């Protein structure tokens, strides 16, 4: 009798295994990236049951360069050019918080005009980054015009930044103590003209892309991230603001001149892909106002950079500063032991935090929604890998 029961149990167990195996067979494993046109320097493995994604495993690290370790072998000034490599489209912002943290460590006061020019470069660079992001979002959804238009308009902002900083993409413009050089002659008029043109273009973007019924069908109600989940996952930037939380580092912890600037935090309440793609557009609109305001309130003349020692160093200590980058809060934690080289540098980037929401949102959605969810998370793989 006991033998029979054992046999019975054995049969049941084997049957369950077969059921499990067939269930596994139902699933198709797809490796999205790093050579997939819809991934970037990033890979995530997904399992699909029919058209639905049931499993997602993000696998970053393809472009890890050891930026944090590299910082320990260079002094505070030498660190700037390589620190902007993780996200060259937003290179002013990624060096902005570094400069703020170093200034706190070494007790450097930035002249007021320098602070304004810094904020101006940061806003211009955020436009460059967001336009690039928007172009990729367009082509991910198969909208080739939305790929070409933002990238064409981005070129104009790049020209502006080239006039301001001397380099097209990697500016190395923000340094501890201010900015490298003053604005060129006639820059203000050029900037105002460009902003006026760009505001007209933003309306056209809305007409052709955001108000397109096919785009709204694809993004509305897709990949909803609720307020509570957004806080739990620790997402930041446009993803957080799309979920209905008006958090912006420029308002929450104003740095430099941002407490004198009057602007609104743009946020939406739905938390779906549409809101996540809409918030950067609203940010760009608001950024145009900020640029105008900065140009108005800027002191007409004065120093742009504090005089520095050849190898600036401060007392031993630590500092943490963050700024609002194109992808959200971007912070540097720097520990100094009193030498000209940092003892430890830690980068906290928005991309990595937003990537954590990816498996959470992808599971349960359709395969066709993958690009619209993935890229709406405002994720830049190179920055996340650092």
């Amino acid at each position, binding site marked *: 009798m006991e033998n029979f029961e054992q046999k019975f149990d054995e049969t049941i167990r084997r049957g369950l295994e077969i059921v499990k195996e067939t269930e596994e067979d139902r699933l198709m494993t797809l490796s999205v990236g790093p050579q997939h046109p819809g991934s970037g320097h990033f890979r995530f493995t997904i399992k699909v049951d029919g058209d639905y994604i049931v499993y997602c495993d993000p696998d970053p690290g393809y472009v890890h360069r050891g930026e944090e370790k590299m910082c320990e072998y260079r002094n505070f000034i030498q660190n700037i050019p390589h620190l902007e490599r993780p996200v060259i489209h937003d290179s002013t912002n990624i060096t902005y918080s570094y400069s703020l943290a170093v200034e706190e460590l070494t007790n450097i006061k930035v002249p007021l005009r320098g602070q304004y020019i810094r904020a101006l470069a940061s806003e211009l660079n955020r436009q460059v980054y967001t336009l690039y992001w928007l172009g990729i979002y367009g082509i991910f959804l198969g909208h080739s015009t939305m790929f070409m238009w933002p990238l064409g308009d981005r070129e104009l902002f790049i020209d502006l930044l080239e006039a301001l900083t001397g380099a097209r993409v990697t500016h190395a413009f923000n340094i501890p103590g201010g900015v490298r050089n003053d604005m060129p002659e006639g820059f203000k008029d050029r900037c105002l003209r460009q902003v006026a043109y760009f505001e007209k273009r933003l309306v056209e973007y809305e007409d052709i892309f955001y108000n397109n019924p096919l785009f709204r069908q694809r993004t509305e109600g897709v990949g909803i991230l609720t307020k509570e989940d957004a806080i739990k996952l620790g997402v930041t930037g446009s993803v957080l603001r799309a979920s209905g939380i008006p958090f912006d580092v420029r308002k929450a912890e104003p740095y430099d001149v941002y407490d004198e600037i009057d602007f609104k935090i743009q946020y939406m309440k739905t938390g779906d892909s549409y809101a996540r793609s809409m918030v950067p557009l609203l940010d760009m609109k608001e950024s145009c106002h900020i640029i105008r305001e900065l140009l108005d309130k800027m002191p007409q003349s004065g120093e742009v950079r504090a005089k520095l020692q050849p190898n600036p160093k401060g007392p031993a200590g630590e500092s943490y500063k963050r700024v609002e980058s194109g992808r959200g809060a971007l912070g540097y934690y720097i520990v100094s032991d009193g030498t000209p080289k940092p003892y430890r540098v830690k980068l906290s980037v928005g991309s990595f935090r937003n990537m954590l929401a990816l498996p959470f949102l992808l599971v349960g959605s359709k395969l*066709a929604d993958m690009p619209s969810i993935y890229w709406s998370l405002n994720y830049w793989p190179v920055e996340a890998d650092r």
Partner: protein
Amino acid sequence: MATAPKDFRFGNFVGSLIRLILWILVIVTLVGLPLIFIVLFYVPLPPVNGEVLTPYLFFSMMVDPTRTVPIINFLIHTDFFRVAVFPGFTYAALLAGATIFIERKFLAKMQLRIGPLYAGKIEGILQLIADGLKLISKEIIVPSGADKLIFWTAPVAFVVTSAAVVSLIPAAPGWVVADLDVGIIAVFAFLGFFPLIALLFSWASNSKYPFIGGLRALHQMIAFEIPFILSALSVVILAGSLNLTDIAEAQHPYWFVLFLPISAFVFYISSLAELERIPFDLPEAESEIVAGWLTETSGMIYGLIQLGTYIKLYALAALFVILFLGGWAGPQIFPEEIMPGYTGDKIYNATTVNAVFWFTIKTLGMIMLVLLPRGINPRIRIDILLHTGWYKLIVLAFINIFVALSLVYGGILGPGGLLST
């Protein structure tokens, strides 16, 4: 600045030219001419105007227009000419090439770009040839574990099926390769092959992304086949014939697009889906499934499928023109005679030339309309696509069938109607 090489001697140059001409003369007289005579003597040529074509006659005809014209007339009324040149493959391929050129430049203008610029000096007009050469010279990679037979035959089958559709399309009155009484049914029968080829090819590729793409192609084409056929059915009801030439002629004073705008709309949307163009390019959705069912294609296999796609685009645009835009109807703008005073056989026929002109113009316009959505729309999602196909377009197509029936039974169109001639 070009300079002559140091050991250049003009005498040597002239000498080499003379030697070249001598050799050409020797080879032509010893090999070429006998070959031509052998061919002309031993191959029975068809009689022209009751005379048997002899070598003497052939050479005399070469210089005498009254004799050349019958030969040309004979040649352009052969089946071979229709299949190979007009309205067959050459015409379709030329229009397909024009389509690719227009697509590139037109889309570039929409997207604030310039488009191809360098190949061929003028606006990159030879870019297509450069692309073709590139594709031919590339290696064709067959994935391991692929079903080789199907993998190699599917692209050829794709082009052949496209060409079969083209063969049924009349481009001028009487100018059609296969003038079937059931022309429109044959067109839909051939179009039904395409999802099968896509599925077979994707299955034979032995890869995941092509497989998903092939299934998507199958879903999409089946969902849109029915509204496609139903929208054409309303035209058949009005025309009272399945023959495409008769349908085009039946719209003599009034084009059917005036009576059946919804049907034309459904036909247009369905042909976009049939052609896998944006917003219906799900089977090739790049950011989701790499390149869909074309992922494993390389080299000329890809080239053949693209050729087939563009020929199919021409065929569907031409079909739209025939069903809704009155085919080749248009005001007579070519003169009746181009050589007044010449009596004898003529090649030039004002009616045909006019018909070809208007047909080509309308088809190119229709092709532009098919290209347009690529610039303004993102890709649609598969479930929305199926919903659109099965629920919305079929209902619209049915509504138009009732419109067509009421027009016929109300005595407005159809045999003996008010507006029909």
